[in-house]
């Protein structure tokens, strides 16, 4: 499911007048590609993702998913936010099945898949637990499973690991990498857009990293990630990895300096 953005702008109306959140962003994501968006806080990344999800309309420009203009929420999208946003009174399994319920599909048909997904992220024994009984990392794993339950063609993730501590966060990066690479079946490839502030996370997970400048945002760099898949965790310790991290950091600092 390829994604295309052309001259996308978004201006919010607020009490203090209009806020230009996104100013003319164009990029493509190929079918089966995983792309990270890296950029300073408030530069309009979440806004961009909401527009891709069909939850916000662009003020100008054009967004298309799978060749179709985005005209509202689509059922073949999976969403993950910064907070797990689980319903506290539902078990992990019921939370994973929540989209199925909301989409008025038969829950029984997906129960097995829910358990399988939970098992893949190491939560086999926690399926009946409620969120309060899970750690932050576990909750975010449940949210990942929930986003994947209906086998969406594309996955939109807005800083899904930002609220976690550093160690859990690294672990979750690997969980997502594994989940992603497993889910890429030939003929049914998923497309991913991942927002993060972490350069390392972006590099570990993505096929391509897009760098955004200060608000109102424009794209300032488009960096392909050369590491073949499936990737091992060790890739992060290679000199190539470190070199690209340094290059990206340089670009981001350059952006900030220009803006200042």
């Amino acid at each position, binding site marked *: 499911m390829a994604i295309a953005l052309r001259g996308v702008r978004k201006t919010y109306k607020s009490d203090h007048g209009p806020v230009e959140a996104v100013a003319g962003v164009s990029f493509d994501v190929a079918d089966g590609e995983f792309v990270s968006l890296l950029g300073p806080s408030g530069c309009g990344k979440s806004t961009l993702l909401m527009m891709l999800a069909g*939850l916000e309309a662009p003020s100008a420009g054009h967004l298309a998913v799978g060749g179709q203009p985005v005209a509202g929420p689509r059922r073949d*999208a999976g969403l993950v936010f910064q907070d797990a*946003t689980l319903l506290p*009174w539902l078990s992990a399994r019921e939370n994973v099945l929540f989209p199925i319920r*909301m*989409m008025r599909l038969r829950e029984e048909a997906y129960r097995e898949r829910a358990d399988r997904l939970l098992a893949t992220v190491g939560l086999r024994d926690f399926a009946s637990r409620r969120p309060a009984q899970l750690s932050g990392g576990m909750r975010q794993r449940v949210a990942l499973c929930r986003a994947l339950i209906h086998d969406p063609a594309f996955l939109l993730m807005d800083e899904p690991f930002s609220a976690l501590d550093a160690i859990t966060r690294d672990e979750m990066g690997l969980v997502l990498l594994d989940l992603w690479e497993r889910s890429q079946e030939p003929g049914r490839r998923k497309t991913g857009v991942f927002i993060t502030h972490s350069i390392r996370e972006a590099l570990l997970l993505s096929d391509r990293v897009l760098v955004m400048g200060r608000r109102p945002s424009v794209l300032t760099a488009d960096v392909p990630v050369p590491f073949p898949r499936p990737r091992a965790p060790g890739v992060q310790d290679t000199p190539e990895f470190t070199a690209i991290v340094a290059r990206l950091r340089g670009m981001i600092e350059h952006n900030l300096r220009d803006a200042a």
Partner: protein
Amino acid sequence: MSDLATTPVAAAPPARAAVRRAAIGQGALRIGLPLAFAAAVLGAWELLVRLYAVPEVILPAPSAVAARLVSAWPFLLTHAVPTTLEALGGFLLAAALGTALAVLLAYSRLARLALYPNVVFFQLIPKIALAPLFIVWLGIGSTSRLAFSLFIGFFPVVIATATGLAAAPPEMLRLCRAYSASPWQVFTAVRFPYALPFVFSGLKIAVTFAIIGVIVGEFITAQAGLGYLILFAASQAETALILAAIAALCVVGLALYGLVALAERLVLARYGHR
């Protein structure tokens, strides 16, 4: 990660018995201490009344009140029935109508703009002062007391429920939208369950208000009920009977509150945040 050499730390087996003993100790303290304090106050009251030979009209000893409670038991029960039923009826109506208005406020911007400030205004005014109006409008029968207790129980339910219906995290609502959930699904699966703790705190206020409403109504005019009994006993200078009726009223109040608290426990066991 797992290939790191780890030295298992021999954890001491948790002293279960000690933990349980401590828990029981805490429980005993939480229940026992307030009871002991209340008993001490009653004891001091009894002692002082006897010591200074306070006349029973001014202040009967707890033992005298207890004796009256026993002797007037059937009588108190007869009067407790209308009070309880009217309060319960007023409360249930307040709960139903209050929730309904809160839902309207949550879903209609126009209704919210027009009504919510007025609801808050009514919540703030001393509604007791309006009781005589209800009697003027609805007569001296139980209808006026029911309506008045509905009236004062209504506002806390509306405000608490309306607040609760706005408590669902926006990201959760966004998620629902992304999965094209219908407004009814969002209401039943997300917004109302999120509101439940708020709803119950409103209901707990409403149930005590509903009883106050009935008693005030009975004070103004009634032929039966605990409020009526209290006024009647006061006119006869039967202080022990007043206190016995108040004790009966406490039982009614606790019972009704207990029912709501029990419902809360049951519902929040399913829809709570734990």
